[in-house]
C-alpha cells in the first residue's frame, strides 16, 4: 500500500477524481497540486451542506470511523466527529484517558483490535511523530493523520489553504508569514508542503531557539523548500504579508529553556495591531488554535476585522468531510 500521488496515471479521466487511488492522508508531502485543488473544491461543496437547515447527508451510512486520540484535543476531535456524523457515519471515539490505552495497551494491539472490528477509517492523533505511519503499515483501513508529534497535521494545513483561497481568491504568489514555534510545530510542517505546492511565498519566523537548525542554514536550490524565507525578526516576516499566521506557543517552552519568559516572547514576537500595519492592507490573520491571547497574538488582532480564526474552525469540518468522502 503506497500513498503515491496518482495524478496523470492511465485510467484517471479528466472528469474523474484524482483522489480515488489515495489510501491515506499522512501528510501533504505526497499530495499533488491537483489533489489539493480537488480537496479544496470538494470542501466548498461540503460548505453548502453545512449551510443547510438540516445538516445531514446519507453518504457514509453504515461506515464506521474510529477516532483515536492519544493526545488531548477539543477542536480537531470534535471536528472529525462532526464531519463523520453529518455524513451519517458511525463515529467511535477512543481517547487515551479511561480506555485500555491508559493501561499500557500498545498501539499495535489497538490497531489489531480496530482491524478486527472492521473499521472503515482510522483518524489518529498521537504525541509521537510517525504514529500514523505505524498504523498505516499494520492496517488495511485508510488512516487520516490528525496530528502526530512535531511532524504533520495535514487536515489543519488543508483547512488553512481553503481559508486563504476562499478569502484571497488564490494562493499562488501570496506572501504568507508564519510566526511562532517552528521547531515543534506540526502545523507549520504540513503548511509548508501545502503552501509551497500551491505556489505561495512563505516566510517562517521564530526566536532562534525555536527554529530547526537546518532551517537556519537555508535550503539548496533543488529542495522543495528552496524558496522558504527564514527569519528571527518578526518585522521582516510581516512586511508585505498577505496572510499572517500565528502559532500556539506551548507554555512549557519557557521551562525547557527555549525562552526567557512568555512576556519577552509576547514583546518580541506577539502579533499586535501595530505590527499588523507592516502587512498588506486586507491581510488575513490566522491561528490554528487554541490561542494564548496576549502572548502569540493580541486579543484585538485575534478578534479584529482581519481575523478569519473562527472561520478556520468551520472550514475544518468541511475539509474533513471532503477527505472522508474521498477516502472511504
Amino acid at each position, binding site marked *: 500500500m503506497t500513498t503515491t500521488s496518482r495524478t496523470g496515471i492511465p485510467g484517471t479521466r479528466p472528469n474523474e477524481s484524482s483522489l480515488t487511488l489515495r489510501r491515506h492522508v499522512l501528510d501533504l*508531502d505526497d499530495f499533488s497540486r491537483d489533489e489539493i485543488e480537488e480537496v479544496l473544491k470538494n470542501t466548498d461543496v461540503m460548505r453548502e451542506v453545512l449551510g443547510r437547515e438540516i445538516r445531514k447527508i446519507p453518504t457514509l451510512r453504515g461506515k464506521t470511523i474510529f477516532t483515536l486520540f492519544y493526545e488531548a484535543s477539543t477542536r480537531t476531535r470534535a471536528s472529525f466527529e462532526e464531519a463523520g456524523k453529518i455524513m451519517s457515519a458511525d463515529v467511535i471515539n477512543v481517547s487515551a484517558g479511561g480506555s485500555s490505552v491508559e493501561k499500557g495497551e*500498545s498501539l499495535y494491539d489497538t490497531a489489531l483490535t480496530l482491524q478486527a472490528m472492521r473499521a472503515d477509517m482510522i483518524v489518529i492523533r*498521537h504525541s509521537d511523530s*510517525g504514529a500514523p*505511519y505505524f498504523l498505516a503499515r499494520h492496517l488495511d483501513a485508510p488512516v487520516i493523520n490528525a496530528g502526530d508529534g512535531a*511532524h504533520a497535521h495535514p487536515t489543519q494545513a488543508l483547512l488553512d489553504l481553503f481559508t486563504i483561497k476562499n478569502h484571497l481568491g488564490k494562493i499562488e504568489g501570496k506572501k504568507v508569514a508564519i510566526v511562532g514555534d517552528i521547531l515543534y510545530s506540526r502545523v507549520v510542517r504540513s503548511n509548508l508542503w501545502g503552501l509551497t505546492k500551491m505556489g505561495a511565498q512563505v516566510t517562517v519566523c521564530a526566536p532562534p531557539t525555536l527554529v530547526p*537548525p537546518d532551517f537556519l542554514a537555508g535550503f539548496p536550490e533543488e529542495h522543495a*523548500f528552496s524558496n522558504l524565507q527564514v527569519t528571527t525578526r518578526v518585522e521582516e516576516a510581516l512586511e508585505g504579508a498577505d496572510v499572517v499566521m500565528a502559532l500556539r506557543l506551548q507554555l512549557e517552552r519557557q521551562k525547557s529553556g527555549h525562552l526567557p519568559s512568555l512576556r519577552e516572547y509576547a514583546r518580541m514576537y506577539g502579533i499586535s495591531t501595530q505590527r499588523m500595519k507592516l502587512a498588506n492592507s486586507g491581510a488575513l490573520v490566522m491561528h490554528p488554535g487554541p490561542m494564548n491571547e496576549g502572548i502569540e497574538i493580541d486579543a484585538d488582532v485575534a478578534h479584529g476585522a482581519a481575523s478569519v480564526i473562527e472561520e478556520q474552525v468551520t472550514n475544518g469540518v468541511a475539509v474533513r468531510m471532503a477527505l472522508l468522502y474521498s477516502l472511504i
Partner: protein
Amino acid sequence: MRTLIIKGGQVIDPKNGLNKTADVLIEDGSIIGVDAGVNKNGAEIIDAKGKVVCPGFIDLHCHLREPGFEYKETIATGTLAAARGGFTTVCAMPNTDPVADSRAIVDFVLAKAADQGVVRVLPIGAVTKESKGTELAELGELADAQVVGFSDDGHPVRDANIMRQALLYASSIGLPVINHCEVKSISAGGHMNEGWVATRLGLKGIPNSAEAIMVARDIELAELTGGHVHIAHASTKGTIDMVRRAKESGINVTCEVTPHHLTITDEAIMGHGHDGDPYGQLKDDAYDPNAKVSPPLRARADVEAMVSALKEGVIDLIATDHAPHGTVDKQTTFADAANGISNLETALGSLMSLVHLKNIDLEGVIEKLTVAPARLLGRDDIGSLSPGTPADVTIIDTEAEWVVETSQFASKGKNTPLAGATMRGKAETTIYNGRIVT
C-alpha cells in the same frame, strides 16, 4: 589426537603479517602452524580454496541480555549468533537484570557461557553499583571474577568525579573503563540524529555535541588520572578529531566504531521506500524503529568521517554493539521503540560492503576485528593464528550473496534496518577451540 587442516585458503593474519595462500594445521584445539602443502594422515580437511581464512573475530561490545532479558537474547542464542557472524569471542556488556556489578552475576554469566555458550564469553563489569552512576562498584572483586573491563553502557557515567575515580581505580587493576559518551541534558527527548532528517520527520534530534562533550571530558580525565578510557561506539567527526589529538599527546584513549555507524546514515529512518530526495515524500515504511539506535545513525558527513578514521587508524577497532530486542520493544512508534540493532549476524556483510566499494581493504577490516581488540584486552592468546594459541578461525566467502532474513537469525533479536537487504560476503565456517561451530 584430533587433526584439522584448512586447505588452500587465502590466509590473512594481521598480527603475524600474513596474507598468502596456505594451509592451517590445527591439532587438539590449538593452532600448530600455517604453511603451504600441509598433510597429515587421518586429518579432517576443510577445503578453503577461494575463501579467506583468518583468526576468529572478537567483539568487544555486545549485549547478551542474560540474566534478566532472556526474551531478547540468551547466552546460548547470542553466542550462536556470534558464531554465525564469524565471532569466536564476545565481550558481554553488564546491563543485564540484575546489573553485572558483583561477582555473583559475573560468575553466573561465565558458568552459563561454559555450559551453553558456543564461543568464548568475556564479561564486562559495571563501573557503578546498578550502573546508577553514584557509587563505584566493587571493581577489584569484579576483576578477580575475570571481567575484562568496566562499563555502564547504555548509561553514560555522567558524574565527572565518579568517572575520575573510576579511571584511577581501574588503572591500578590495569583494565579500561568503557564509556558510552552522551550528555543526557542535551540528548533528552531526542530519538535520532539532529539534522534535516530529524526536522523532516518531526523527531527531536540529538546533536553531535551530546557525544563530543563527554568525549572531551573523558579525555581530560584520562590525562588527569593516567587511566585508560575506551570510547564506546564513536559516531561523530568531532569525537574522532578529539581522539586523534589525545592520542598524539600520548593520552591513554582508545575508541571503537560499529558496522552501522560506518555504513548507514540517518536517512534510513525515512524508510526503504524513500527516494533519496531530502524533501521527497515519505511512504508508510517511514519511521523504521529498527533504525533506532544509541548513539543514533548519523549524517553522511559523519559516516564518511568514520570510514576515513578507520583507514587512518584513529579508530582502534570495530565492535558490533549487538543489541537484540524482542518484538514488543520495537513494534511501536519510533519514539517509543527501544534503541539497538541486532548486529552479530550482519556485521561482516556490512563491513564487506566497504571492502567491495574499495573504501577499506579486507586485511584492515580483519585487523580491526581480531588483533586490535585482542590488544586492547591485553590477550596474546586470541586474535591471531599464532602457533600454540586456541584454534579460533573464521573462513569467509567474500563473494557469497545472501539476503538478510531475520527469521533465519540465530539471535532472538530480529531488529535490524537491514532486513531484506542483499549482502555480499559472509562467514562460511566458524571454528572455536578447534571445533567447527557453524
